């Protein structure tokens, strides 16, 4: 048994008082969860501590909270782990972000999360005719969509989505991962309509800023940002949908730039991201960036020569990389949810040797 201090964010909407911090000391084995710590505090000291929880095993998605500032499931976070990242020796537990607090650690998921989920037509629009037996689909596709299906709707990604903090109307990581669950499902009949709808929405998939917060937050390895990027690739490459925030063009300009110069030739990147120096769309941006260009010239980062000539050329190694990548005629869109192969070398693990009794573990 080890003693831990839990610092809980308390809020009671019925008192009219502001939220406050409250410390509780709990006594548990170090690898027990923060949820068990909270439940012990509730059982021993104060039954009014509010937290949604049910399965205790990271599958029901009820107990999403922030622990020491990071979104997590309380049941999946060990006390010793949390203690290691604690400041002042107290494990800080507070409600998730981006959603209104109802009481203590309980947030209003309906007002934010579920509304967004409902906005992506979250059910299968099955291809007709419906077969008598099962739809015959490649096994890889089912494993693939099982990654987004593994989402337990805990809200951890929503809690810390930076784009949603700036634009509360952003569809958000969980709902867009849910959208991929259908776009990636060969049984769904409306892939294109789905993609057009989240592409045309100005708070849709192009609002994601690629910050990886949701990837870190997700307790189930759903990789919401990865799903969003795949939605974008399918929309851009297969349906020619224009990225309303210029991100796709920027990506292409970047790749073209490196292919040609080996290292980044910044003078071309900006105009190319807007369709080229002569494109009307590029003009205001180019004019707008003049002060930055002048500053760069003053410091010698940019010279007229560098702008007009291309002193670098891609090296043989860079060319070889491009050649290799471009030789794949098919875009491999399946994710890496299922990793590892039988022939994988057995990497040594920290725990190896601990499992006595079986002799030849593989």
């Amino acid at each position, binding site marked *: 048994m080890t003693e831990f201090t839990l610092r809980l964010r308390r809020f009671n*909407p*019925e008192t009219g008082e502001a939220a406050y911090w409250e410390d509780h000391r709990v006594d548990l084995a170090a*690898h*027990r969860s923060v949820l068990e710590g909270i439940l012990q505090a509730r059982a*021993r000291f*104060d*039954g*009014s501590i509010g937290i*949604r929880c*049910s*399965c*205790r*095993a*990271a*599958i*029901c*998605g009820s107990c999403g909270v922030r622990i020491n500032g990071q979104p997590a499931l309380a049941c*999946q976070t*060990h006390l010793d782990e949390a203690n290691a990242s604690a400041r002042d020796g107290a494990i800080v537990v507070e409600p998730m972000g981006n959603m209104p607090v*109802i*009481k*203590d650690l*309980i947030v209003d*998921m309906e007002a934010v999360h579920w509304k967004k989920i*409902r906005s992506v037509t*979250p*059910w*299968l629009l*099955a291809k007709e005719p*419906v*077969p008598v*037996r099962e*739809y*015959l*689909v*490649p*096994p890889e596709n*089912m*494993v693939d*969509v*099982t990654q987004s*299906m*593994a989402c*337990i*709707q805990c809200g951890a990604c929503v809690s810390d989505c930076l784009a949603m903090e700036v634009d509360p109307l952003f569809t958000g990581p969980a709902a867009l991962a849910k959208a991929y669950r259908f776009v990636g*499902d060969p*049984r769904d009949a409306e892939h294109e309509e789905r993609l057009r709808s989240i592409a045309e929405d100005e708070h849709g998939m192009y609002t994601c800023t690629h910050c990886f917060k949701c990837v870190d937050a997700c307790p189930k390895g759903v990789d919401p940002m990865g799903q969003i990027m795949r939605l974008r690739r399918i929309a851009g490459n297969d349906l020619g949908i224009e990225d309303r925030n210029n991100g796709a063009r920027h990506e292409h300009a970047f790749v073209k730039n490196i292919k040609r110069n080996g290292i980044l030739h910044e003078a071309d990147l900006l105009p190319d991201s807007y369709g080229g120096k002569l494109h009307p769309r590029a003009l205001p941006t180019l004019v707008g960036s003049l002060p930055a260009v002048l500053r760069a010239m003053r410091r010698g980062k940019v010279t007229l020569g560098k702008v007009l000539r291309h002193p670098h050329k891609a090296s043989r190694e860079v060319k070889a990389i491009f050649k290799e990548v471009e030789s794949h005629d098919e875009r491999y869109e399946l994710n890496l949810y*299922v*990793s590892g*192969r*039988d022939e994988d070398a057995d990497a040594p693990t920290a*725990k*190896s040797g*601990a*499992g006595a*009794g*079986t*002799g030849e*573990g*593989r």
Partner: protein
Amino acid sequence: MPAHDVLIIGAGLAGQRAALAAAEAGVSVAIMSKVHPVRSHSVAAAGGINAAIAADDDWREHAYDTVKGSDFLGDQDAIEIMCSEAAAEVMHLEHIGVTFHRNAKGELDLRAFGGASKKRTAYVADITGQAMLHVLYEQLLKHSSRVERYEEWFTTSVILDDAGTCVGVVARDVRTGRMETFTAKSVILASGGAGQCYRPTTNALICTGDGIAQAYRAGAGLMDMEMVQYHPTTLAENGFLITEGARGEGAHLLNREGDRFMSEYAPNKMELASRDVVSRAEQTEILEGRGVGPDGQSIYLDITVVPRKRILEALREIVNIGRDFAGVDITREPIMIRPGQHYIMGGVKTDVFGRTEVPGLYAAGEVACVSVHGGNRLGANSLLDTLIFGRRSAEHAAARAGEVPMPEVSDARLRDDAAMIEAIVARPRGGGRRISEIKEELGRTMNAEVAVYRDAEGLGRALEVVRRLKEESADAYIDDRGRVFNQDVLGAVELGYMLDAAEATVVGAVERTESRGAQFRTDFPERDDEHWLKHIVISRGPGGDPKIAYAPVTITDWPPEERKY
């Protein structure tokens, strides 16, 4: 006052399947749950769902395996219905979007499971319950114009009219504390099991026997309550479930000597014998000093014999559980497990249409006892049970909606329940014990005395404890005086439900003086078909004490025989 043709309490697989079936039948339907539907405990079902869909399989084989698994206590007419309707139900799930794992031809892949003579378990990795529950919720959203959802509403009572017919429920909005009467022509209880009567248990904190106690208090009989399943592989550390899918994929059970001891107990099926058989074998090894771990109270589950790629693809969730909750990489070393409370075969007695003994009141899923599981449930039959009898209950209740008028309901029950809640809130602090202490004592007692092995002495002690706890719960106090999300007061109401369910379990176990399925009496170690090939039905007697009756077991094609695996 809201009024619906069909009102479903509980939004796990049974409840949601019922809601969809009722909506399809065109009646007005509402589904109510004390937690958001996707938090329901069905979400934790891991391994899969059984159906004879392979070309070389037949539903009769599935039925026989189920009958044998039940130790011949299951009602064979109900089992035939469940197994013969299984294939169509699984295909329906596939059509609405469940991402079942496929074989190379793109058909549903099937895995082996305990007590099954063939591979007949369809699955989604080891998150089958989650995948199914979330897809059903997608369908509820799709049909939201036809299905009213009351999410985070806690049911306090089933309401009966003067004739004893069920006419609705009283419930409390968890978020605001407001109480309301809901009128319904029919109520379907789909509120799950009562695993929280035990500690440890694989069951979620919400599995507190609500529907079982509500039906019991309304006069319905409870059947087979003594039949409590101990799952053979729960994490020694904290009682979490390790799916039977692990053994289905080939994992071994090893004792202290490193022997696959199941060869002594079930030479043909080995690790894939029925759960009661495997749990008993493990417990025997432990009792005879061949357990592993610091206290010798565990057994090794060795999953390393399964190819690593297959583990990562098909047993991903237990890779996570091993890592997160035991610090073990199951692909590289064995993990310590032991038998742990997992499921109750018993529940509210119903017929094959889900009807309880109270007119207008139905039950489906773990809350119910049809009985398709008898003395012991086969793995991957519970998801099937929820769907088949959830749907059948809803179809019957929907038809009933055309035959009866919408009842007139007074608010008498609402006033009683509101007063009951106020009284709990007003109990003086320190006047009695804390609710949490009583729950702890109940759980430990049930797990010590009403577990894999039982005898008259231990059961007698358990009954005494349960009855004392019932008295103590009357003045047990809580801390929360508020209305918004007062989980404390709901916990006190749940404790009352748990104690009713636990009492029926112990009384049934005392009564059945034989060993069958999950009930093993060391003082009556043989199965006794002459006296005990019958169900025990427990109702609430006039003074509130349990009253025992019996119901015959329906036998169609498979007379009882010796059970060997």
